[in-house]
């Protein structure tokens, strides 16, 4: 972390920002997980057939992001080798203690769902390949090659069940992060009962947005076109969830400003000062109004397919930025003002170092690499 620029009075221990860029990245990644999983469940549980083209991809995306969700935390911890203490001796009065079990449980649910969804492919690949590959796929399918109709029917039921169990699990996985911040009475920028819901809604928004962008890019790379009904549906859901999300965010701000508690003088200075660009310009104005209008046009009018796709993709990119800005504003913003309400500090991540920009970029890229690797092992795009 680069040298902080302070203004006013801070408690002597407060000058350095403790929860850094990596702690901004962590809820961002779990948010993408939640959103991608919701899309997958919309198909598997609620039977939205138009989402079939992205259903498997969404599931794999959720799994890939989930695999790397804990890595920013491991890089941040003072003692990552003791990380398992959170599962060995959890103290359940702490929201953070939920992380170990909720994460593991949800990881197992998603892994199981992928296993059941991909089982026919695993069995087919086991039977078609030879040597080491055959062994690999046989182990992966646990040595059972039963793909009769009855077995597949059972698999389908279980998949539906897992997807249904997965939805509240995804909500808890991301909601607990919101509660972690929202329940902290010592920080007036964080402390609000709305925090878990805001986090969850923006998570779903970012998840759908990343699916739209990834889907468009991958289809372009494969030389194919995106499925029209699928894209339309995704944009529609994105708009809906975003409306709820932005309503809650504005409500929180309005409520704070209206009540005008003692902390408001410090918070309003924070918003007008150090957070002016990331909060006012990015989160509230540019990356909210433009996608809101674009997605509204997409959802309410029948547009030419290319126009609709372009608007959808631009909105998704802007929303990905909006949600990242929101995470930054909450996590870093809450640490930029003193608990004495009399001073401000600054934060600029370094490029190198354990919690620097480079590490963050690499950790964020890893899930995409994983998705590519999974596609090589168990191809999840439709063969045409």
């Amino acid at each position, binding site marked *: 972390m680069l040298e902080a620029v302070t203004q006013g009075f801070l408690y002597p221990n407060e000058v350095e920002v403790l929860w850094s860029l990596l702690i901004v990245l962590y809820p961002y990644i779990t948010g993408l997980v939640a959103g991608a999983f919701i899309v997958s469940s919309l198909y598997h549980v609620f039977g939205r057939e138009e989402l079939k083209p992205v259903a498997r991809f969404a599931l794999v995306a959720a799994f890939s992001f989930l695999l790397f969700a804990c890595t920013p935390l491991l890089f941040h911890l003072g003692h990552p080798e003791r990380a398992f203490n959170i599962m060995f001796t959890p*103290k359940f009065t702490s929201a953070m203690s939920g992380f170990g079990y909720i994460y593991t449980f949800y990881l197992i649910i998603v892994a199981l769902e992928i296993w059941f969804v991909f089982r026919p492919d695993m069995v087919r690949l086991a039977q078609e390949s030879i040597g080491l590959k055959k062994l690999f796929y046989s182990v992966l399918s646990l040595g059972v090659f039963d793909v009769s109709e009855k077995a597949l029917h059972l698999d389908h039921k279980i998949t539906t069940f897992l997807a249904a169990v997965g939805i509240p699990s995804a909500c808890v996985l991301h909601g607990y992060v919101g509660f972690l911040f929202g329940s902290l009475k010592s920080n007036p920028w964080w402390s609000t009962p709305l925090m878990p819901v805001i986090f969850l809604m923006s998570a779903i928004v970012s998840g759908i947005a990343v699916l739209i962008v990834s889907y468009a890019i991958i289809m372009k790379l494969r030389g194919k076109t995106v499925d029209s009904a699928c894209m339309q549906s995704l944009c529609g859901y994105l708009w809906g969830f975003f409306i709820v999300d932005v309503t809650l965010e504005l409500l929180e701000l309005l409520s704070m400003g209206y009540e005008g508690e003692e902390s408001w003088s410090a918070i309003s200075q924070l918003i007008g000062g150090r957070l002016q660009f990331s909060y006012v310009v990015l989160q509230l104005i540019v990356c909210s109004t433009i996608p809101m209008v674009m997605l509204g046009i997409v959802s309410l009018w029948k547009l030419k397919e290319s126009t609709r796709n372009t608007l959808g993709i631009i909105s998704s990119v802007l929303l990905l930025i909006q949600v990242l800005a929101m995470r930054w504003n909450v996590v870093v913003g809450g640490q930029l003002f003193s608990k004495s309400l009399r001073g401000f500090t600054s934060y600029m991540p370094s490029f190198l170092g354990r919690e620097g920009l480079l590490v963050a970029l690499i950790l964020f890229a890893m899930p995409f690499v994983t998705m590519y690797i999974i596609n090589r092992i168990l191809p999840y795009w439709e063969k045409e």
Partner: protein
Amino acid sequence: MGHFNHIIRLCVVLIAVVIGFFIVRGFFVPKSFGTYGSYQYGYHRGDSDAEQENMYALYQGTEKCAKCHEKLIKDSRAGGHAAVACEACHGFWQAHNKNTKDTVPRDTTVESCMSCHEKVTGRPDFLPQINSFAQHMKDQEEAFEPDLKCIDCHNPHVPL
């Protein structure tokens, strides 16, 4: 009927993982870990208390100094520094403990006295304070010499 072999195997794998976790946990959690009192405030590794208790104490308090320097301390009770601990100016006792022939630090500079007695905004009125050494000499109508120190007029153990 009978098409759930793969599910049975899956369950076996999962249960093995869960049991394996608890076995591994048994190795890593210290035996003294538990709830002492309430779960919210007392859930911790019991041995930690004794470890913290047994840490080395550097400062020892004026009573310890009195064991050898009784008269000096008794006399100081009559003056303005009665409530000031020896270690406040002379540093912690343990530095003296290794070899009592080693003297504790004795900072006789003006700065040392001024750290408490300089007039600084915020200091309450009961404390005797001066603006500066030169000003104080002037007020006392004494000649100012550059090498002069506070202790040349004031006994640091029994000041006014």
